[in-house]
């Protein structure tokens, strides 16, 4: 596990976190390549199933990054996303997987630094947690599709 490189899926809202990622790029801030971004029109579009599926397919960590509270372009998509993340946390712990592997994060489009910092912090946290126990088994058999 010494040089374990976690795979992290970040569901990023087009209006904030995704733009913040761009901003981080133009500010030449580097963040770990472990983070794979999935752009969504709003974090309210991220379903419980999508998050769980990411883990099922072998992600070591997942986070959902939406707008600051009160700033959602679709009124309350970020609030809904936060609740779904909470539900996934519960589900994960029910099947014996660390709930810290999934988080809800909020930021605005201008927060390039926060985006980079979050990506770094989460990658570090997941690295310390070790690989997703489900992935371990999966890798022993066949690669996820």
């Amino acid at each position, binding site marked *: 596990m010494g040089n374990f490189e976690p795979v992290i899926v970040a569901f990023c809202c087009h209006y904030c976190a995704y733009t913040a990622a761009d901003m981080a790029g133009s500010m030449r801030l580097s963040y770990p390549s472990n983070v794979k971004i999935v752009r969504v029109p709003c974090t309210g579009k991220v379903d419980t199933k999508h998050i769980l599926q990411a883990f099922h397919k072998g992600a070591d960590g997942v986070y959902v990054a939406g707008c600051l509270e009160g700033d959602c372009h679709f009124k309350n998509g970020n609030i809904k996303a936060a609740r779904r993340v909470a539900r996934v946390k519960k589900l994960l712990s029910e099947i014996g997987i660390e709930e810290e592997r999934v988080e809800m994060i909020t930021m605005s489009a201008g927060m390039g630094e926060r985006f980079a910092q979050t990506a770094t912090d989460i990658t570090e946290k997941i690295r310390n947690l070790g690989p997703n126990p*489900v992935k371990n088994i999966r890798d022993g058999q066949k690669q996820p599709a």
Partner: protein
Amino acid sequence: MITAERKPMEEILECINPYNRILLVGCNECVTVCAAGGRKEVGLLSTALQMAFMKEGRTLEVKEITLERQCDPEYVEELITYIDQVEAVLSMACGCGVQEIARRYATKPVFPAVNTKFMGASERQGVWSERCRGCGDCLLGLTGGICPIARCSKRLMNGPCGGSTKGKCEISPDVDCAWNLIWERLKALGLEKKYEEIMVAKDWRPSWHGGPRRIIREDMAE
């Protein structure tokens, strides 16, 4: 609708532990509406169970299917295509659906994945509450459309009891006193007189006290 809630994962996992191939069956009716056992919940539970097995170094094959109605033989028949390919069935429908599967597929073990709770209505998004106990002799016409059997904690016929406080039931400040609701509603309807009528002791024979019930429509039954 009939409401239900998913069972704790631990209990579900214990039921299916001896098997490696299961059929996970949802229902498109009540349990879909109360977000307990529709197509979406089937997908979620399926993934979670597979992950739980993988964690233990095992594989679980899950065939997911959501029937139009699990309490109707014609839909349950649809499982015939898959039933021989699995070792057990896990149902996300209410108890009626689970039993229909058990009746039709006599040699296949079937387990409930949800706890069936009550007949109720949506209070608001994500909140359901009990409204009817199926007593078999509806008296809503006497009580302003509010059921004292399902909604009064003591099932009083001539309430309220002395515990009714500021419109709330004595069991909890979060529970409305059904008899207070009845009174307010009768008042709004100008039917206070109805409240004065003493209700006679209820005959519970049409209810569950008379053994398992059945409805026969002679113009339809074959």
